[in-house]
């Protein structure tokens, strides 16, 4: 079904820079070793392989980070990134004066003007990576600089140890927590100008947390979904066409859904297929405006496009950014047009909606 390895390797090597190819192939092969046919996961080896970075309360390029435990019983950690509040932020050399890492200094208002708070859910198909994984630490730092935002990266519980709905519960907990933090509220109306963002499984989480937020009274100013992970029971054309060609296989997608969804559920479960036969109707509901980025070489694109369609049919505001020659993970390294242009789209999206007046 999938092409021979040599064909696939050379195809995928043609469309991404060499270091990107090395990075993503490395993930692919390592991840292959972690998934077992019986549905269990080699978590010890996964944690060993994962390249992590510590939080750093000393600003680097004007961005600092620190970790907070927001729910003790579930050990729910978030990593918070923010523009440096300190005056002495000459980023070409390290500040030699003692920089206070006192929590109260770190949680000063970034600005009196409205600023966005981006709650970010990292990818990894619900099973891999953490908030302190190096690739996601880089991405979150970039979001801070790009949007002048505070970014809250959620270290949600992963499958198969924690299935649906744990990741959504953790995402919701983070949103609720953010709404209780005065320092995250901005503007004359003192609102939490929160955006939900995520890549791959994180995009899926962003959608479902937004659904949960509908009845809560917490307004979400926008959803940013990067190559979001959706699926369904039927096989789509893109899955058949692209199976195994650009780092991803239908088989591995099936494994991750099986590991995340409740036992016995199929891929038409609404978590996986929100506009499928078991989905909920969002018509008339105050769902946030969405920016959905789809990579043209991602085998699940038909499901992502169906998601965009589903939002439109429900009368929701959605902008699709379709990058024809992009593969999964294009946003991990800043070395393609895809990367920079999509970052600009995100920046514009946030700028556009942050001043949106909520009329109820």
């Amino acid at each position: 079904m999938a092409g021979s390895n040599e064909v696939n390797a050379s195809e995928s090597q043609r469309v991404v820079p060499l270091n990107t190819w090395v990075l993503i192939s490395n993930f692919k092969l390592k991840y292959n070793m972690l998934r077992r046919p019986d549905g269990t996961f080699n978590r010890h080896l996964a944690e060993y392989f994962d390249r992590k970075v510590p939080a750093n309360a000393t600003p680097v390029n004007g961005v600092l980070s620190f970790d907070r435990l927001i729910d003790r019983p579930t050990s729910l950690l978030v990593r918070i990134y923010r523009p440096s509040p300190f005056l002495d932020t000459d980023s070409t050399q390290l500040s030699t004066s003692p920089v206070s890492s006192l929590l109260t200094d770190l949680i000063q208002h970034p600005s009196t003007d409205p600023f966005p708070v981006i709650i970010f859910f990292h990818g990894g198909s619900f099973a891999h990576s953490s908030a302190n994984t190096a690739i996601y630490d880089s991405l979150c730092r970039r979001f801070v600089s790009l949007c002048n935002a505070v970014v809250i990266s959620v270290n949600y519980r992963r499958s198969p140890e924690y299935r649906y709905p744990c990741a959504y519960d953790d995402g919701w907990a983070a949103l609720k927590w953010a709404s209780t933090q005065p320092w995250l509220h901005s503007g004359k109306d003192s609102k939490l100008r929160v955006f939900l963002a995520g890549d791959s499984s994180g995009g899926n989480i962003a959608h479902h947390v937004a659904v949960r937020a509908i009845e809560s009274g917490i307004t979400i100013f926008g959803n940013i979904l990067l190559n979001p992970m959706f699926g369904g029971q039927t096989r789509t054309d893109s899955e058949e066409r692209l199976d195994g060609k650009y780092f991803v296989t239908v088989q591995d997608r099936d494994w991750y859904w099986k590991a995340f969804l409740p036992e016995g559920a199929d891929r038409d479960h609404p978590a996986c297929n929100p506009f499928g036969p078991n989905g909920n109707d969002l018509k008339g509901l105050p769902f946030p405006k969405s920016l959905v980025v789809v990579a043209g070489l991602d085998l699940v694109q038909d499901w992502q496009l169906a998601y965009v369609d589903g939002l439109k049919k429900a009368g929701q505001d959605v902008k699709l950014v379709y990058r024809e020659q992009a593969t999964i993970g294009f946003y991990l390294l800043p070395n393609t047009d895809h990367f920079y242009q999509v970052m600009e789209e995100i920046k514009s999206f946030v700028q556009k909606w942050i001043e949106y007046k909520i009329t109820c």
Partner: protein
Amino acid sequence: MGPYPCGSAATGWEGGRSEAPCAAPEIDGLLAGAGYRVRSSDLCHVAQRLERLESAMVGSSGNHVDFAHPASDAVHYNPSDLAAWVDSMLSELAPADPGPARHAPAPDAWEDQIYSQPQRAVAARMEEEEDSGIRLVHLLMSSADAIQRGDVALAGSLIDEMRLLLTRVNTGFGIGKVAGYFVDALTRRLFSASSAAAASGSPAEYEILYHHFYEASPYLKFAHFTANQAILEAFEGHDRVHVIDFSLMHGLQWPALIQALALRPGGPPALRLTGIGPPSPDGRDSLREIGLRLAELARSVRVRFAFRGVAANRLDDVRPWMLQVAPGEAVAVNSVMQLHRLLSDPDSPGPAPIDSVLAWIRGLRPKIITVVEQEADHNKPGFLDRFTEALFYYSTVFDSLEAGRASCSGAQQQQSTAVAEVYLQREIRDIVCCEGPDRAERHEPLMRWRARMIRAGLRPVHLGSNAFKQARMLLTLFSGEGYCVEEVDGCLTLGWHSRPLIAASAWRADDFDEDARPIPDNFIFNSISNTNESNSSINNNAAMLRRRNSNNNNSRSSDSSSQQESIHGM
């Protein structure tokens, strides 16, 4: 592939380096930002190896993806060195295919780069933002600042204010508890002479505190466990082995090693243990007593054992001849939280005692040197800086102890936690109250230790996925789900809620000549026991992976070592 330069430095890392500009500019900067270290010139080669690895993975199971792979049973080392990892996987799966010979980049100058920026993770424990808690921290910082500026009067009045505040705050846990210890330490600093301020008890008392700290938390267990694993691996294929323990204490680390050696395939080696410790003031030979107990254990599991105690107040009073290392024996040097005592103030001129000690360690040509140290920077010359670091470090440690106590039921365990806090209090007092030669707790972070070890001519030995996995499993025995083990470029750290608190690394000094060039990373495992084979690096890695109990270069001739050991087992 597009106009973007592959080698440009990754975002988030520019300007973040505290060391000199990148010493290995040909490393791909973007991959470095992702945690991987690959030379730009090697990218093509690594890509080819990855392709080949995928073929090999598919080939061996017949299935394209989604298999439990034999490679996942292999022991992996240092995932950051992507090229070495791919090669080691290939040698495991396709041994007939050596591929083009390659040399790994000399890693040492580079190893510092990735994680070298200064870190000051804020304690995640400060989740309870009661005004009193925040106020206490503010007051602590202000008084430390006052002390640094020499404003004793202000410091004194701030301390009074804090004492008052402590009566209104819950001092049973959280910030109230930790603040109490720091207020106490500040008071001592202001009102006692430096040497009296730390007022430590006898060595015997210290050993008791240590024992309770061992019981109440996983930190020392992690230290012992990780070190023992590395020692065990280093001793493979050796018939006569000699462990030098820089701080014997109650010998808690050694029963596990003795038992592991007893179970070794092929039989146990003859084990010598040299334990260094302070002299007992009351005429007892406490070192000998411990040695006797260990000998008893060794006898019961049929391990030939000999013990020698070396009484010394300071490590730099020890001379190599006291250790009586015999020719032909494999030496392991074990230091759990001892080396930092040999450091001096960073801005004081001249060599520190650590330099001469590392030099004689190197002279012993050890197969393995296990080093475990607190992961903190408590050796900063500036008082306020040091105080701040310590406040957040010990807050995190206390937080983890609390979580452990909250979830355990035995009265014994609860008592251990209380005494463990006294153990930590000693360290806090030392860091806050003492200056100059009086201060012993000069903790420095892993990255600085690594640089120091490399400067001393020691070679890194990577702690692998096996040790990592077992350390994580060890933690599941502890309630208080917040501990995390991390692999950092060949070393392991144990932390609480993403803050590393203790770091373990391993080194060796047995495998090169005085004037040889630095050996690239790939060749570190160039035969633990075979020095004369002309294998390629890949085959040597394969030997490593398969744990071959290969021909032993140590002769099995009669043991001609001296009979001066104080205790023999068997």
